[in-house]
């Protein structure tokens, strides 16, 4: 079930009042929310609800056993079983074909010709997200920073429908304490929720879909037919498309959860205003970035070891982060570009500190230069993220070089304005957004409904017919 559909609107109109009516009765509310979330997930493919149930049971069992065990070796063994179990399921569904075909081709290059039958495996939507959420729960319990909750509560956490299929990656320690709070149905932060939902809707339905169909698909689908100017604008358009698509989804997810009385962590913070890659990763997919930092980068040693160890840790983290997005070598390269960039920034900072040099003055022009540089490095990496193969990425990048005089029918004023709006909107001060939400919150319910109805009309009319799948659903 996709958020921007009539089907979901009807689903949510039923869930919202029932959820608030049942809120005083905790167990009944949890059972209802679990059923609603399973219905939401099963609407796509009912068989995979069983996978979600199995994941809940397995992780809760591991968590309880780890919590009860006194022997450190046993605890470590149980944690290992949980990690292997979770990553094993993820690996089977997501990476099986990738690893078998890559291994076969590697052996073939070495002269060992084998022809394995490769099973066809259907990828369950959202498996990468709920697997990471489950792992954070088990690892936090292993670290004794969190205690196991009841099975029903954990199942609600893992399947809670606003964040189930494409994040944000909410941790148990962020969500489960909220189940114990008294939610007052007279105090819903609706203005922020509606603002996020409609902002996300506009980003997805209008901006992302428009850029995808007008230029990005054509440039990446047939790069040899595009001019250099079209390729350049196509890459920038993809940067805006993937931001609008993914942040649009999580805006809607955060807004819907807020209407149900739950707060999710922020997932994006104007990423294209970043002045460095480190800054970018504090603003882009923040919940994944935090997850990788806390459960992979820091356990690997973080930046506490030697300089080389830090670079190694950054590269491992970012390459695995890239592979998390998809079973293809292009995602590995995307992660490696970011890992190398972060290592370079780290090296430069350390060298400056070692020489006792002061940080350069933070002038406007320096910030502008750093923003342009960072944005273009990020866009270069996006080419590998979007490309269907290395050959495709190579075709796109080489096409940038020699075809500046070719005609560029794909570039229209509408495309350029949409890209400008997509990037420019990230520089709107947060206070302006806050003031808009505050002003909206002071309207009467009827006026609010009218304003939102007009917003729905504009979004629906400007958007193309039908709803394209969200890019991050495949991850």
């Amino acid at each position, binding site marked *: 079930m996709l958020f921007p559909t*009539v089907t979901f*609107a009807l689903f949510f*109109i039923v869930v*919202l*009042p029932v959820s608030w009516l049942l809120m005083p009765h905790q167990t009944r509310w949890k059972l209802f929310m679990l059923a609603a979330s399973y219905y939401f997930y099963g609407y796509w493919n009912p068989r995979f609800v069983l996978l979600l149930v199995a994941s809940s049971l397995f992780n809760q069992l591991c968590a309880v056993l780890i919590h009860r065990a006194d022997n450190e070796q046993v605890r470590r063994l149980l944690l290992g079983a949980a990690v292997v179990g979770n990553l094993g399921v993820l690996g089977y569904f997501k990476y099986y*074909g990738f690893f078998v075909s890559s291994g*076969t*081709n590697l052996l*073939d290059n070495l002269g060992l010709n084998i022809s394995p039958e*490769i099973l*066809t495996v*259907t990828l369950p939507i959202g498996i990468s997200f709920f697997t990471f959420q489950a792992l954070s729960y088990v690892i936090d319990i292993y670290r004794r920073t969190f205690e196991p909750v009841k099975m029903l509560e954990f199942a609600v956490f893992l399947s809670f429908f606003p964040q189930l299929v494409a994040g944000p990656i909410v*941790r148990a320690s*962020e969500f489960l*304490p*909220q189940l114990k*709070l008294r939610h*007052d*149905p*007279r*105090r*819903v932060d609706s*203005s922020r929720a*509606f603002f996020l939902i409609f902002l996300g809707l506009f980003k997805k339905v209008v901006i992302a879909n428009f850029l995808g169909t007008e230029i990005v*698909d*054509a440039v990446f*689908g*047939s*790069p*040899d037919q595009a001019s250099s100017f079209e390729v350049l604008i196509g890459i920038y358009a993809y940067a805006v498309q993937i931001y609008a698509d993914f942040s649009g989804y999580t805006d809607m997810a955060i807004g819907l959860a807020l*209407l149900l009385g*739950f707060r999710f*962590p922020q997932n994006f913070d104007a990423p294209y205003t970043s002045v460095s890659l*480190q800054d970018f990763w*504090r603003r882009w997919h923040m919940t994944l970035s*935090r997850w990788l930092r*806390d459960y992979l*980068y*820091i356990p690997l040693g973080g930046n506490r070891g030697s300089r080389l160890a830090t670079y190694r840790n*950054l590269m491992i*983290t970012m390459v695995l982060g890239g592979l998390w997005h998809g079973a293809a070598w292009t995602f590995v390269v995307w992660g490696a570009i970011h890992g190398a960039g*972060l290592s370079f920034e780290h090296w430069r900072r350390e060298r400056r500190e070692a020489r006792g040099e002061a940080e350069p003055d933070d002038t406007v022009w320096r910030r502008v230069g750093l923003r342009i540089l960072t944005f273009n490095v990020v866009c270069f990496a996006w080419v590998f993220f979007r490309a269907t*193969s290395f050959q*495709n990425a190579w075709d796109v990048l080489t096409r940038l070089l020699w075809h500046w005089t070719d005609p560029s029918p*794909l570039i229209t004023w509408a495309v350029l304005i949409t890209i400008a709006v997509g990037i420019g909107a990230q520089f709107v001060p947060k206070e302006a957004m*806050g003031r808009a939400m*505050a002003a909206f*919150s002071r309207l009467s*319910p009827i006026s609010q*409904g009218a304003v*939102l*109805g*007009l917003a*729905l*009309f*504009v979004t629906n*009319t*400007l958007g193309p*017919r*039908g709803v394209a799948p969200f890019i991050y659903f495949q991850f």
Partner: protein
Amino acid sequence: MADDDTPPPTDVVRRTVAAVKRGNQPRGRGTIAPPDEPPRRLMAAGHVLLVGLICLSIGWALNAQGVKKTAHGQPIGWRRDVAVFFADPVASLSSFFQLSRPREALQSALGREGDDDINTALPSPTTPDAGGTTTTIQTAFSPDDPMRVWIGGDSLAIRSGESMIEDLPPLSGGAIEVVVPQIQQQVATGLARPEVLNWPEHLRSETERDDPDVVVLTVGINDAQPLTGEGGVGPFGTEEWQAEYRRRVGGLMDQVLGEGRTLVWVGIPIVRDGGRDAQFQVINEIVRSEAELREGRVLFVDIYEMFKDHNGNYAEYLANDAGEIVKYREPDGIHLTPAGGDRVAAEVFGTIAENFDLTSWRDDQPSTTASTAPVTTTPPP
């Protein structure tokens, strides 16, 4: 990746829980004042529902024509019946009270007039001459006078179309020019549901705009369902269904031929689901037999066998010509990957090259680019 100097996760947790407490515990006059933001008024859940209902009502009234088209485009079944039951009268009321005007004006400003129109009339096969129609078409092409090719279809056309746009011009040495800058995809459409997209009508507007010599069309994977619109009949696969689907396929073929163009119809490959595969074979067979009735003018490209393993089963991965294992199909078991698209594009090029002269210009022969040859089409039964 943020370094270790960013706030530890426990801070984030503390802030989140504190924010929840701020927002959910009775305090003052029903406002929330997050740091760095002006205070917002909070709302009761009942009022939230009211706002949502007003929003949806206004949105529905102003977008009623679009909602109606969406309702009619739902899969056949009780959900569609219910959607149509509500959407049609609301659309009529919206129209009566002129509430559809703003949408029409905005669509007109965007150059998308008629987006919400529902036209379910489909052309039948034409029999203008009982003895066959003699149509003169160009058969030889060169870089100076290239074959103009239009490429489009449903979602199955996307990957193969992208490959064709990329590959056909260089494979032909420039004797083929693709007239569309990108694949003309119409996802989730076919000949079964003209209220979703009337393909003959849509294709006519496309070919009038681009004036191609050859139309490469991939349509059919959404057609294993009851047929709606003029002549509608169901369920799928009955004799009546096959007769009506045959009429629609033949009608579309003759429309393209009547414009003096050649039609290349790309079939459906084997798919993972056995039930759907059997349905698609029925569709393939109808298209193949209709193409045979128009031999030489409608070229059916059969890609069914192309994606089978050595046991004759569906395969997601197959060895390519170099012996490398390559992923040809998407995880949904239906669509093609870019590598799969390349395979289909090569097959389409082979079919075009077999039926047209794309090479004689290389031999430096006297100009053949203007040569024409009469082709006889046999009228359909």
